[in-house]
C-alpha cells in the first residue's frame, strides 16, 4: 500500500441552479488577462448539449485520455514515437474556433463618437485583434438548451438512446435539462501530465493538485490535446499552457477555492481522500463496466487502523488524517456511493465526483389521472425525463448499475424526509424504500443533513496544508519571510 492524500471534490448536480457564479468568480480571480480571455477554468454546461469547447466529449475527434492496447495503458493522442513527428503541428490540438473568439465592446465609442443623428452604440470587438466582430458563438452558447436542434441533439452522451427517448428529451411537455459545472478533475492518472514532452506539468505529492510549471512549459501543447476534459488551455499571448490550480494559494491559507466559496447552490464539497497509489495502473486497466467500482476501491478508509499506520509511514500529517476522517467527499463517494466520476472510461481517474441529478418523471396517466399506485417504488427512475442511459454515459462508462444505485438512494432519502415532515408518504413505505436502496435511516438523515442543511464548515473540510513545513524544506523560513509571495512576483532586487 502506498498511501497518498488528495484534495478531492464532489459536485451535487441536483442542487446546481446554473447561475454561473462559479465561472465568474474564477474568471475575476485568474483568467481576466490577455491571452486568457477565452479560458474558463470553471465552466457550466447545459446537458444535453455540446459543451465547451464544442463537443469536448467526442474523443474520436480530440483523442483525449487513455486507451488500453495490448494490455497496456497508452495515451490516445501521443506517444514517445508520435511526439517526434507531431511536435511541429499537433493534429489533435483544438483551435480557437472550437472555443470561441473572445470579445468586448468598444465602449469608448459612446464617448468619442462625433455628433450625429443616431445614438452611438458600443459594438463588439475581438479581444484578439481589436477589430469589429460578428459574435457567432460563446462559452455558453447553448445555455438552457438554446439552439438545441444543433447543440443538444448532438450531445455525444445520447449514444445508445432510442429514437423515442431522443424525441422525448426535446418534446415540449417533457423537456428536460440539467447543469454540469466543470473544473479540472485533478486526476490520479492525469493524461495531461503524461503527455508533456518537457515534464512541465506535475502532480503535487502532498495534495494531488495538478499544475503547469510556467517556467518549463515550452508550448509544445500536447497537454491541451491529451486532457479528455479539455481543462488545459493554451494562452495564445504568453505561449504557455494554463489550467485550474484549485486556488492552491487560497487552500494553503485555509480558504475554499473561489468557485467553491461563491457557489450559490452550495453544490460543492471539498475534502481529503486517502488513496492507494500503488494500484492506480491496475485499476486503470480494468474493463469499462468495472471502472467506477475499481476507482472507488482505490480510496482508503481513514478510520482503518492499517490505513492509518501506512499513511503515517508515508509521512502524511496527523492533521491531514484527522481531516480525511471528516471529509464530506469520503462520505458521498465511498460511504454512500452516491457520487460518481465523470467519464471514467477516459481512464484519467478523475478526483472530482458528481452526484447525478434526479429529474422530474414522465408521469404515466390512467384514465386521465396520474398513476400513483405502484408497488415498484423505483419504477419512475426508469421513467425520469433524463434517461438513465444518458446519465450512465456521463457517469458510469455506459454502465447503468452505479447511476441507478445513486439515484435510488437519493430518491429514497427524499421520500424518507417526506414521510417525516410532509407526511404524504407513510413511514413504512419510506422504510421499505430505504431498505431497497441499501440505506439505513441514520444514513438517510446524514445524507439529508449534508445535502440540505450543510454549513460552510460541513462542505469544505480543508486540512492544514502546512505551508510553513513546505517552505522549511525548500529554504530557510527567514529567507521566505522576506520574499515576495506566490508565483512570479519577484522581489525588489537591484538590477545589475
Amino acid at each position, binding site marked *: 500500500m502506498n498511501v497518498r492524500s488528495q484534495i478531492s471534490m464532489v459536485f451535487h448536480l441536483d442542487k446546481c441552479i446554473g447561475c454561473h457564479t462559479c465561472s465568474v468568480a474564477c474568471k475575476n480571480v485568474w483568467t481576466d488577462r490577455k491571452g486568457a480571455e477565452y479560458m474558463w477554468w470553471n465552466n457550466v454546461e447545459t446537458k444535453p448539449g455540446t459543451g465547451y469547447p464544442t463537443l469536448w466529449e467526442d474523443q474520436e475527434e480530440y483523442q483525449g485520455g487513455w486507451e488500453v492496447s495490448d494490455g497496456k495503458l497508452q*495515451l490516445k493522442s501521443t506517444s*514517445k514515437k508520435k*511526439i517526434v513527428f507531431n*511536435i*511541429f*503541428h*499537433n493534429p489533435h*490540438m*483544438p*483551435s*480557437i*474556433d472550437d472555443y470561441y473568439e473572445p470579445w468586448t465592446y468598444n465602449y469608448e465609442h459612446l464617448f468619442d463618437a462625433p455628433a450625429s443623428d443616431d445614438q452611438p452604440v458600443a459594438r463588439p470587438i475581438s479581444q*484578439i*485583434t*481589436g*477589430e469589429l466582430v460578428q459574435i457567432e458563438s460563446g462559452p455558453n452558447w447553448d445555455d438552457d438548451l438554446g439552439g438545441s436542434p444543433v447543440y443538444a441533439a448532438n450531445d455525444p452522451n445520447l449514444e445508445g438512446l432510442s429514437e423515442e427517448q431522443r424525441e422525448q428529451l426535446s418534446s415540449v411537455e417533457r423537456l428536460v435539462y440539467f447543469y454540469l459545472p466543470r473544473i479540472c478533475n485533478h486526476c490520479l*492518472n*492525469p493524461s495531461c*501530465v*503524461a503527455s*508533456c*514532452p*518537457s*515534464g*512541465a*506539468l*506535475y*502532480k*503535487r*505529492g*502532498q495534495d494531488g493538485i495538478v499544475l503547469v510549471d*510556467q*517556467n*518549463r*512549459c*515550452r*508550448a*509544445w*501543447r500536447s497537454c*491541451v490535446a491529451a486532457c479528455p476534459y479539455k481543462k488545459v488551455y*493554451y494562452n*495564445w*499571448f*504568453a*505561449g*504557455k499552457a494554463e489550467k485550474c490550480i484549485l486556488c492552491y494559494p487560497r487552500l494553503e491559507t485555509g480558504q475554499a477555492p473561489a468557485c467553491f466559496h461563491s457557489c450559490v447552490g452550495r453544490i460543492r464539497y471539498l475534502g481529503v481522500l486517502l488513496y492507494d497509489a500503488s494500484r492506480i495502473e491496475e485499476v486503470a486497466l480494468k474493463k469499462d463496466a468495472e471502472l467506477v467500482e475499481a476507482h472507488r476501491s482505490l480510496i482508503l478508509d481513514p478510520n482503518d487502523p492499517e490505513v492509518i499506520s501506512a499513511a503515517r509511514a508515508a509521512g502524511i500529517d496527523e492533521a491531514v488524517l484527522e481531516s480525511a476522517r471528516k471529509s464530506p467527499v469520503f462520505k458521498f463517494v465511498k460511504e454512500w456511493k452516491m457520487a460518481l466520476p465523470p467519464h471514467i472510461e477516459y481512464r484519467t481517474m478523475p478526483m472530482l465526483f458528481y452526484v447525478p441529478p434526479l429529474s422530474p418523471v414522465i408521469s404515466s396517466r390512467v384514465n386521465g389521472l396520474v398513476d400513483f399506485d405502484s408497488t415498484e417504488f423505483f419504477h419512475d427512475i426508469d421513467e425520469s425525463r433524463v434517461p438513465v442511459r444518458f446519465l450512465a454515459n456521463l457517469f458510469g462508462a455506459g454502465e447503468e448499475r452505479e447511476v441507478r444505485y445513486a439515484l435510488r438512494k437519493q430518491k429514497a432519502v427524499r421520500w424518507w424526509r417526506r414521510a417525516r415532515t410532509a407526511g404524504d408518504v407513510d413511514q413504512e413505505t419510506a422504510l421499505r424504500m430505504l431498505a431497497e436502496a441499501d440505506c439505513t435511516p441514520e444514513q438517510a438523515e446524514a445524507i439529508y443533513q449534508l445535502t440540505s442543511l450543510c454549513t460552510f464548515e460541513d462542505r469544505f473540510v480543508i486540512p492544514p496544508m502546512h505551508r510553513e*513545513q*513546505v517552505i522549511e*524544506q*525548500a529554504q530557510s523560513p527567514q529567507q521566505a519571510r522576506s520574499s515576495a509571495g506566490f508565483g*512570479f512576483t519577484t522581489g525588489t532586487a537591484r538590477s545589475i
Partner: protein
Amino acid sequence: MFDTLLFGVLPYVAMFTFFLVTIQRYRQRSFSYSSLSSQFLENRRHFWSLVPFHYGILVVLAGHIVAFLFPRELLAFNSRPLRLYILETAALTGGLMTLVGLTAAVFRRWTTAKIRTVTTVSDWLVYALLTIQVANGVYVAVAHPWGSSWFAASVSPYLWSLARLTPDITTITPLPWGVKLHIINAYLLIGFFPFTRLVHVLVIPNVYLWRKPQVVRWPGRPYPAS
C-alpha cells in the same frame, strides 16, 4: 582587412553573444523560453507551413553539422558519384522544403489578422534573416553544386580553425560571393538567435523519451528529471 573582420572577428562576437545571452536568459527568464506556438490561432495553414519548414531545416542543418564534424569521412563517402548525387538531391530537397515552408509561414503571419497580433519585431527579424539564409542557401546549392564536397574541403578547415582559436581564413577568401554571404548571414543568425523565439531549438524535449509517464513533485525533494 574587411575579410578578417567578417570571417575572423564576427564569428567570435556572434558565438560569445550566443552563449552569454542564451545562458543568462535561461537562468534569469526561463519563462521566456517557449516555441510560442500559434497553432491555436490558426490550424490549417499552420500544418502546410511549419511542417515542411521544420523537416527541411532539420535535414539541412544535420547536413551542415555532419560536414563540419566529419569532413574526411564525407569526402570519402562522396568518392562514388552515385552517393554524391543522392546526397546533393537530399540536401537540395531539404533546402527547397525549407524555403517553401518558410515562405508559407511568412505569408501566413502577414495575412492572418489573429497571428499578426502575436507577431513581434524580433519575429520579423528572424524571418528576414532566415529568408536570406535559406534563399541564398538554395541559390548556392544550384549555382555552386557539389557542396557536400567543397564544404568539407574548404569550409570545414576554416570552421575548425575558428574552433581551435587560430582563425585561418585563407581557405574561404577565394569562395564566390554567394557562399560568403551565406557564412556572414549565418553569423548574424547566431548572434541574434538568443534575443528571438529561436531559443526554442535549445529546449527541445528529450527526457520525455525515457522518463516515466507521471510526474509527481514533493516538497523538499528534488524535482523529477524533466
